[in-house]
């Protein structure tokens, strides 16, 4: 039972971290390595804001917005001008950006492990089973709300429909009078806010440190590929699946191998089903 719940928590955080990443992948077409650093930025923004005296929840909320705005600025200043240069250039610009963010944060905040100044919370116990801590409970709630919100936004609002149109076919969307730049802006804003949120979650349950972005981006990449490149629902499924896999795997191997289990699962899935999980519900696209 607790394995199920731990898996759910791990999975939901992964999901939130990967969602934004896969949105940029889908609309912008490249692997945004800096996404991992946006997670870290969210956590450090929150630290910084609590440091100057804001209450934690307000600081967290502002940090999410701040991340969104920062992401938007990156899109405008860095990525928009090089869009025509191909995905490799975009990808490595994002690698450069990742270094830049990581270096600057490191220079300002130092390399020590930090943690949020929030009270330690106890696991809630119902009968004989241990349930989650209030924090974890809150995280699950926020993740659920975010996912539902995102689903409604993408499926039913005009802006959401535009974003999906751009993601499906940029040229066609342009012909239909959709402004791809505005969609890009919005996607960057949402994706970066989500990253910030994920980073804060990670900070609540673990520690805030300089390497968290790099550690997570590998995981995020995996979840996204497993979910079938840019498919948002695939990513959700993959995030949860990996979360469970990691917690279940711990029954068999030592906890040091926790992430190794995830990677093992990914390798296995890709070798058996090269198109990722998405291929389970979508027939293979045409070739040549």
């Amino acid at each position: 039972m607790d394995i199920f719940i731990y898996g759910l928590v791990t999975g939901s955080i992964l999901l939130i971290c990967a969602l934004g990443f896969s949105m940029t992948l889908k609309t912008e077409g490249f692997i945004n390595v800096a996404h991992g650093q946006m997670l870290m930025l969210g956590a450090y923004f929150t630290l910084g804001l609590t440091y100057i005296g804001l209450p934690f929840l307000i600081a967290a909320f502002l940090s999410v917005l701040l991340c969104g705005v920062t992401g938007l600025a990156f899109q405008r200043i860095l990525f928009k001008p090089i869009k025509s240069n191909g995905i490799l250039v975009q990808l490595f610009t994002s690698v450069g950006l990742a270094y830049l963010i990581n270096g600057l944060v490191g220079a300002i905040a130092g390399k020590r492990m930090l943690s949020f100044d929030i009270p330690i919370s106890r696991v809630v116990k119902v009968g004989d089973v241990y349930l989650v801590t209030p924090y974890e409970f809150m995280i699950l709630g926020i993740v659920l709300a975010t996912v539902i919100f995102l689903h409604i936004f993408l499926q039913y609002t005009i802006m959401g429909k535009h974003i999906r149109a751009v993601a499906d076919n940029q040229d066609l969307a342009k012909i239909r009078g959709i402004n791809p730049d505005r969609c890009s802006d919005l996607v960057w804003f949402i994706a970066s806010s989500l990253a910030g949120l994920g980073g804060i979650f990670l900070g609540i349950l673990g520690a805030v440190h300089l390497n968290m972005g790099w550690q997570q981006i590998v995981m995020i990449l995996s979840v996204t590929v497993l979910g079938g490149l840019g498919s948002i629902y695939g990513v959700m499924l993959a995030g949860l699946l990996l979360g469970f896999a990691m917690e279940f795997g711990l029954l068999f191997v030592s906890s040091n191998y926790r992430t190794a289990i995830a990677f093992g699962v990914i390798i296995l899935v890709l070798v058996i089903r090269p198109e990722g999980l998405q291929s389970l519900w979508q027939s293979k696209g045409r070739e040549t």
Partner: protein
Amino acid sequence: MEGFLIFAISILTLAFVYVILCLALNIECGVAGMWDLGIVSYFGVGAYSYAIIVAPEAASYQHYLFGLESNPIYGIVLAIILGGVSAYLIGLPSLRLRREYFLITTIAFSEVLRITFSNENWLTNGVAGIYNIEQPLKSYFSPDNYIVLLFVIFLCFSVIVYKMVNKLSFSTYGLSLKALRENEALAKTARIEPSKQYHSVYVFTGCLAGFSGALYVWLNTLIVPTQFTPNVTFFVWTALIIGGIGNNRGAFLGAIFFVILLETLSFLNLSAELALVVSSLRIALVGLALILILRYLPNGLLREKPTVL
């Protein structure tokens, strides 16, 4: 010898290790067009192979396999062989995939390997690593002379690797790799069998990366698992992109440029606190350089050019 000169020489010596890694990456990813984010795997395998063969027997508080204190030549040979073997094995499942799928599988393998390095104490002494691995020929030279000697040896190695990779890039084999990169389906109609070419270039890359891993340990005299994070992979890619992907001279130059960029600031004599800040800032500097170069020279310092026959 003057401090700065020694510093410059040792930085270049380190750069030559990266040059080899970068050339290996170039023939695989620049010439053959594969999306490999796992080159650190073979670098790590090579480094550990060298380390456990060359290091003395494990002390009572340590654990690692072998510790034969054997001739470093064997260490290097073993590093090359095991680098190739691990590439061969990892290639078996992953080479069936392409692009993003290949990328993720290779990076996943590299993480699995790193986690193994840090947890299998019997093999690698775990996170504590292995220290004081004696440098070959060290006892015959004064420290200053030894630094110069290392520089010369590593320079020779990297020039040899350059020649080798360059020859291969412009051979018929290299042509087949470029054909695969450009249009795999059409390449098949030219009698090229993709799996065979990809697998061979992958193993070759593994051997070279293993070799540079051995040199890395030789230079550092120590090995810990944290040296083998995906960071290395990204560093080498960055160096290659800066230099000019697809161009061997670019790969050579890019690696040197990159290491100089990364290490120069460490020459400044700073207080411990400031040094920490600076060590972060130089990462930021690398990032900034990468962004600017891609903005204004999207093909790198030396771009790939048409081959004139």
